[in-house]
């Protein structure tokens, strides 16, 4: 179990971009991750996520697979094509992974939905160890 983050440090806090077309999920992750000292930006599909990334480059990307406009796999491929995108940790999530060809995707981690927060937090901290 992870401890609640210590008070915000003066240096820049890690930014997590959460992408899901279910606003309840993005809001819930945002609320909980902020309690652990992360900054969170949200988007409801891949195109919106790329726009957010132009505003501020995140330290980690969490994306649902099945979304309108641009799905999670397309988003992941688009991110990898951006300068510096190959190094960005990407977590993809789906409740139905069999519907996607994940073998061709370059994500770092796949999590099957439902993703409980304890697991998600563990994985984020594992992927961003130096930024805790």
């Amino acid at each position, binding site marked *: 179990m992870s401890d609640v983050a210590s008070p915000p440090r003066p240096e820049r806090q890690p930014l997590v971009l959460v992408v899901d077309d279910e606003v309840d999920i993005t809001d819930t992750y945002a609320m*909980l991750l902020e309690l652990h000292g992360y900054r969170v930006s949200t988007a409801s599909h891949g195109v919106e996520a790329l726009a957010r990334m132009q505003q501020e480059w995140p330290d980690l990307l969490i994306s649902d697979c099945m979304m309108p406009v641009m799905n999670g796999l397309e988003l992941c491929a688009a991110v990898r094509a951006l300068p510096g995108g190959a190094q960005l940790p990407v977590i993809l999530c789906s*409740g139905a992974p069999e519907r996607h060809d994940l073998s061709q995707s370059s*994500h770092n981690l796949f999590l099957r939905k*439902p993703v409980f927060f304890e697991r998600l937090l563990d994985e984020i901290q594992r992927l961003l160890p130096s930024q805790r």
Partner: protein
Amino acid sequence: MSDPLQSSASADIASGRTHRIALLGTGIAGFDEILGGGLPAGSLYLIQGLAGSGKTTLASQVAFMQARAGRQVMLLTLIAESHAKMLNHVSNFDFFDDSLVGHQIQMLSGYASLSSGGLRGLLRLISAELNRHRPGMLVIDGFRSVRDSGPSDLNLSEFMHALNSLVFTMNCTTLLLSPVEGNMPESENTLVDGVIELSQYESGMQLVREIKVFKLRGANHLLGKHVFEINQSGVEIFPRFEATATRAGKVPGTSDRYVSVGIPSWDKCIGGGVVSGSLTCLLGSPGVGKTLMGLHFIEQGLKDDQQCLIVGFYESPERLLAKARKAGMQLDDYLESGALQMLWQLPLETLCDDLAKRMLDNIGRRGVTRLLIDGVDGLRSIVVQQQRVRPFLVALTNELRSRGVTTFITEQLPYFRESRPQVDPSSSQLYENMMLLEYVARNEVNRRQISVMKLRENGYDGAARLMNISDAGIEIDGLAATASTPLADGC
């Protein structure tokens, strides 16, 4: 460069696991049964019912059972009532354990957050506390305060969505307690994963408590209402027996084995006894010998080293034993050894589902193969809703038949009558065998006679026969005289 994270992702996919929602046992057997095994974990439930219906007791009991099982539990109140007062209300129940409070069970108030910060403030508080304590269960008492805080329908709907998502993401099974009734089309009802209602009504001067699961996503719950009691142990729920029997869908087998009824002279008349696992109804006027015949049946089972059970409603165990002794049957030793047990219950404010459960538990635990129910009108009278009588008896007799329990059931006929008894035609569908015990006048002398009304899977002589009762018990004599006619009354 290889990426170790990718392999773990692949492993996760390769496992191909289907993520079925785990069921959280509540620790209350009857509750779990009507829920279809338990509450789907990590979901949001509304437990509603007017004041005094038992919501807080039920939720507290579940909470303490979870805490005792090692889970963290959080009790959040949205009413001005102090925690001490709330704890005091449940402290007299057996499930209460003071040592868990403050350790496994955290208590906090959300009243100030709600009144000062509105729904957003309350959600912030809940998320922070869930994050801090990571409870497996959250109980929010006084949830009506959320609506009473005056949000718009849209705001309330958004709050319910957010709360549902939060507790799901935190995998925290959450019970909301609210003093309302009915399956209303409001967000508190529609945006939760389950709605359970507690209610109560008066049947005559008897108070009957009921529980109903309106909806339960992800579970195969029992439909309809079930009765429950609140006693020293807390809430005890008795699933409606007909509902559980329907779900079980047991199909009785058949047997070609005959068992003695304990009266050799009567065995001869009915082709060697009754079929093992069958149900036999002994119909007759008061005092004609139904119970005594049932005791012969039980004694025979005991002599054959069978486990036997007598379920009685009127004659106490002591009186039954004395009656057996007078007829030459010594049942006391069997009672002492445990081969015979008696379940005696005055047919007053007893719940039929409770009695059926105790009866079947006894049968299952001890491997009972012979059962005497003395008599069926006692069973009928404890079924509060009269429309339940027949389905209840159908379910019970089917269960006994499925378990292979050879059963005698006595049924009393009116003391005074003008002609041959008019038996409810549907009764015959409950029993394989029906025997009629009557008083008859023969040569100006009252005599008892017995005849077969129905005997399945067996040839029998339908003629009525005289039945004598002496110090040696029941003896079947010769054919009753053709001139004999049933008495207009029992005397």
